[in-house]
């Protein structure tokens, strides 16, 4: 499954980031890396972007970006 398909308040473990370069690096720098547990907190009022919790802090990202994060 990819992150963009997850519904608010569902949880999972990051399996892999399937994008390189700028977006891949940015995701890693913001703390999205394989093995970490994450939880979807909410979608924005207009559905996009979404907010996730990683290890005690909160990150928002667009669904277009979240589809490169594989979750199990």
């Amino acid at each position, binding site marked *: 499954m990819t992150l963009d398909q997850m519904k608010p308040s569902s949880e999972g473990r990051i399996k892999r980031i399937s994008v390189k370069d700028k*977006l*891949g690096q940015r995701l890693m*720098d913001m703390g999205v890396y394989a093995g970490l547990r994450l939880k979807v907190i909410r979608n924005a*009022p207009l559905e996009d972007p979404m907010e996730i919790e990683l290890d005690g802090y909160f990150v928002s990202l667009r669904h277009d970006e979240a589809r490169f994060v594989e979750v199990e």
Partner: protein
Amino acid sequence: MDILSASGTMKPALWRWNKVQSEKILVALAGQPNCGKSTVFNALTGASQHVANYPGVTVDKMTGWYRHNGRKVEVVDLPGSYSLTSYSPEERVSRDFILHEKPSVTVNVMDASNLKRCLYLTFQLLEMDIPVILNLNMMDVVKQRKLDIDTDKLSNRLGIAVVPTAMKQGRGKKELMEAIDKVALSEHTVRAARIEYGEMEPVIRNIMKRLSSETSLESLYPIRWLAIKLMEGDREVQRLVQENHSDFKSLLAYVEKLREDFEALYDEAPEVHIANRRYQMADDITRDCLRLPASAKRPFSDKIDGLVCHRILGPIIMIGVIWLLYYLAIVQGYNLTNYTWPVLAKLRGLVESLTPDPGFIEIPLSRAFFLWVVDSVNALLNYIPIFFILFGLIAILEDSGYMPRMAFIMDRLFSRYGLHGQSTLPMVLGGIYVGGCAVPAIMSCKGIPDERSRLATILIIPMLNCLAKVPLYVLLINIYFAAHKAWAMFFISTISLLLVLPVSKILTLTILRDKETAPFVMEMPSYHMPTIRGVVGRALERVWLFVRKITTIVVSVAVIIFMLLQFPGISKDRMAYYHGEKDKAITAFQKRIKGTGYAEGLQGDNLMALVLYWDEYISTRMTVKDEEAAAGMNASFKERNPVFFSIVQPGDDKDAKKVNKAFKGLFKERKGMLREIRKERIDNSFLGRLGKWMEPVTRWAGFHWRVNVALLSALAAKESSVATLGALYEQEEEGEALEKRMAKGEEGFTPLHALALMLFMVLYPPCLATAIAVKIQAGSARWMLFSIIYPMVLGIAVAILVFSLGSALGLSGLQAMFAFYGLALALTIFMGLYKNKLDNID
């Protein structure tokens, strides 16, 4: 890059840190965003701060200094960044500064309550083999959340000094200064913790070997860092190799091969491996040094977000916040100007008293000039209370952490039009509803990471409702839409947004198409209570920026416009004609008062003295409100000149009454002559000629040459449009409002004319100060020119469309207004839908 050019002549030595030779210490502050770095910077340096730009990029360089133990310590606040890659200009300037300026100490400020993620950056700093102090800031939050950090153990594991602080409460400042001194003055020999990259280590060593044997980079940069960066695929380091290696191709091909082999062997991209290793180490150290409370509560910030980002409540709260922003800044700020305006009026009075007195029909050039400049500056200074409140409130929004929430709520909408969630703040500042200022708005665009969105935001902001456009709107609405004021005001306040979104969309689909984009991925930081010092400080700083804009740009442009309006002036023949008229009027007056006791005393200069006396009496009278003050005023005027006073206030004296009546007539005639001279001068002036020259085109938009002149003068600062109209529609009677004068002066002017004019004003090119801000933020003069020309073309096109079509269809101003609004709304919705299709094709 002077370090590189010097490398050829210097004996290569190993990369070494600068020792402090002088009395001065250079300190860099590095840290991730939202870690309280600017609080630390402010606490250390106080008011001694200075903003500049890093060369070649639009990133602010904040420098400050303090004295400690007799040494001057210079502190550079590097831009906040999560990492040190080459993908963003902030990260590039941070690492370039560290590597090239070689600060004696780099203080890594971190949010101690977010230890693990912050260590990710710490490791990257340590990898550069530089002296680092870890500043665990926000210890108050750590305590509040009942976290327990073992700072000694952390210091041991990292191999560097760790200083805990709670800078917002001012705690730990002295300790941090001591630690900076200590590290700066000692040899950099401490071996800090180093990340082992496991399977990648042999590869890193091989690259290091080749780098040191084939290039002289070893003397300039930390070699292990270079090798790791090459494995990460860092473009900037590749470029560095290219510049310093005759056979760079073979080395870079070698690295590329190593990267591919690594990925094939371990099924993991090298940069992913590197990031994972850093996080593993961070995790390991955090486990060792941090103890969590037994029961972890849901963070308070998240509870707030439950409301603030709520599907329904979120947008309502946001609208409430923006409304409050406007209410406090614009409405209440405007009330405050009632108290500040008299001060400015006094300033004008002072200037007036210092300049030469006017003659009967000749106004000395210096008098006209200085009053013009003072009026131009006052028009802008009048906004200071509004700006102070506005900037203070924005600082509160920024410091509290609400801004990212706004971006979160608005991104979906804005991104459809090629903008970004973070365009929200600039657009609020620019006047998304009514009353902003494009200069701070454009300045605040630098936070937008995505270049395409940033440029789009910069280019559309001048079309929002800047505060200076409002007086013209109010003027026109009061005259031509008096019966539907509320509708007209709503129209003008919201139409700019409906024009700006499609325009942004078109720009991003055309000329901005190939600009770089950046990921949205954004931290949602914890909420914080803003401090009074931080808020007031920032508000003052920004107001000061605004004042500087006035004194430099607006004054110089006011001078230019003055000249364009004043010259070439009236021909000698015409002036001689006016002198003849004047002599006639005076002779007639003398004849009329002949035989009264006053005739003798009102010859030559004395008559002129009475003109000035009368003038002053009237203008003083206008400022007096109650009976008592009026009596006091009369007494003082009487004391100054009892004879003149009896003419001004004749009472029952027959002679005096006669003279009073005759003089009133003369005074009115003089006024008429002055007005005619001024009108003739403007008709004749360069600006007037330009306005007339443009009339064949602007006619289709319903703009008459006088309006052209006002619009031309608005290029300087939009306030000028009303000021120039004021000058063009001379005061007929004392105290007559411009509304009346304009209505009188423009008899053919209909609401449809006014609508076209207002729409042109919405799209009007940026004022000069804004144009300069565009140049700074967009980084090139070409964008500045573009930002001036395209709204002008667009504006005249829209005005012509509305006026010509409206006239042809026989629409009234209000009908045309609704029609245009519907059109703009439809276009905006259509553009918003259009994007999705296009994205799918992409």
